[in-house]
């Protein structure tokens, strides 16, 4: 006759208490939860950065296309007036016109290096350089602002479009170059 006590004792082999018994199952649960929260944090950070980046690009693109409008800039005063669209924005910006050489042997302005666009800006008949520079949130121009040699942030945008610039009755093909960064 096997006693009830003996059967219970036999079946309790390896039993180390209610928590101790669940200990192996806690390892994958804790690992899973850690992984889940790590990926969740990464995703939210990534969404946030990408949203900011997209908003930045859309804003600069919108301002650039509204600056060039019909691709015809009628004189220096119109250029300067359009520049004011970039004033007070939450990024640094340099906007300028650079002349297109029609000589077939001329080299490209940017030499295919758009990561460091520092083209020579066009000077009008009075010798004024056709460029405008705005520091972050500045309502007025900051002539000392320089485009960095390389952008240490992914928050930078460079757009350029051919435009026709009218000066003293002559319409010259130019590039409107917009560089913006945070």
């Amino acid at each position: 006759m096997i006693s009830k006590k003996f059967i219970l004792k036999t079946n309790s082999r390896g039993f180390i208490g209610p928590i101790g018994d669940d200990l192996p199952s806690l390892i994958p649960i804790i690992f899973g939860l850690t992984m889940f929260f790590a990926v969740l944090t990464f995703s939210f950070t990534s969404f946030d950065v990408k949203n900011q980046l997209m908003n930045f690009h859309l804003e600069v693109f919108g301002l650039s296309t509204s600056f060039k409008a019909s691709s015809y800039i009628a004189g220096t005063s119109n250029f300067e007036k359009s520049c004011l669209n970039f004033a007070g924005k939450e990024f640094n910006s340099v906007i300028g016109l650079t002349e297109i050489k029609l000589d077939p042997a001329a080299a490209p302005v940017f030499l295919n290096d758009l990561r460091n666009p520092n083209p020579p800006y066009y000077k009008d008949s009075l010798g004024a350089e056709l460029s405008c520079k705005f520091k972050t949130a500045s309502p007025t121009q900051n002539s000392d602002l320089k485009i960095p040699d390389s952008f240490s942030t992914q928050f930078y945008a460079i757009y350029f479009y051919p435009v026709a610039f009218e000066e003293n009755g002559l319409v010259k093909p130019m590039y409107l170059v917009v560089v913006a960064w945070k």
Partner: protein
Amino acid sequence: MEIKSNSFKSNIFNSKGQAAITDALYFLIIIVGLCSFMFVFSVNYGNLLDERLKQLNEQEFIGSALKTIIYSSTERGTQSDYLLAKLKEDYYNNDSFSDSNVLLAKNIRGIMREIEASHDYLFYISYSSDKEILTFPLVILHLNLKANETSPVTSNFYNCLITDSASLNKFLRDAGNVKPSNAQLLLKPREGNLIQANASLIVWPSTNPDASTNKLADLNCTAVQFS
């Protein structure tokens, strides 16, 4: 009977740990699936918008380039005039653009220079005749080509004589991802009424610079001489 029942209950209770670890593994599998989905989604988030913005920017560039070509001035002796005016005058005098096509090609080349290393393009003026057949009085084509496998890719300009739109359509179909921009203009031949013509600039990435494929077979092209 009582002993059997107790033994059964005891077995059930003591298997609790094994069930818990299986549950935990299922939980882990679900978490891994969820994390993979979230990771892939967050990495790809915004790529579509980026691509769309790039396309919009290219379209803006092409539209701007066409307008700049049309608006630009050119020298006429000691004075200057719109390039378009010279083109119209040339068409009136010659029923063709024979005197102005090199000047126009120079202008187009200058304006498109920044992207010419990576893109091919086609500029043409066309109009529909009485029989609704498209006529192409002016076609300027830029292609990046290399003469053979070892030679470097060079920029080439051609004047083409397209006799039917089918050959042009075939050429553009083969070119792949083309982006067009159009502008309307009026031409006046020496004899006859005003013609409603269309100036088009079509740009596409130059992906196959191999000259041996003879892309120009149906277009009757001759190289532009920039002198």
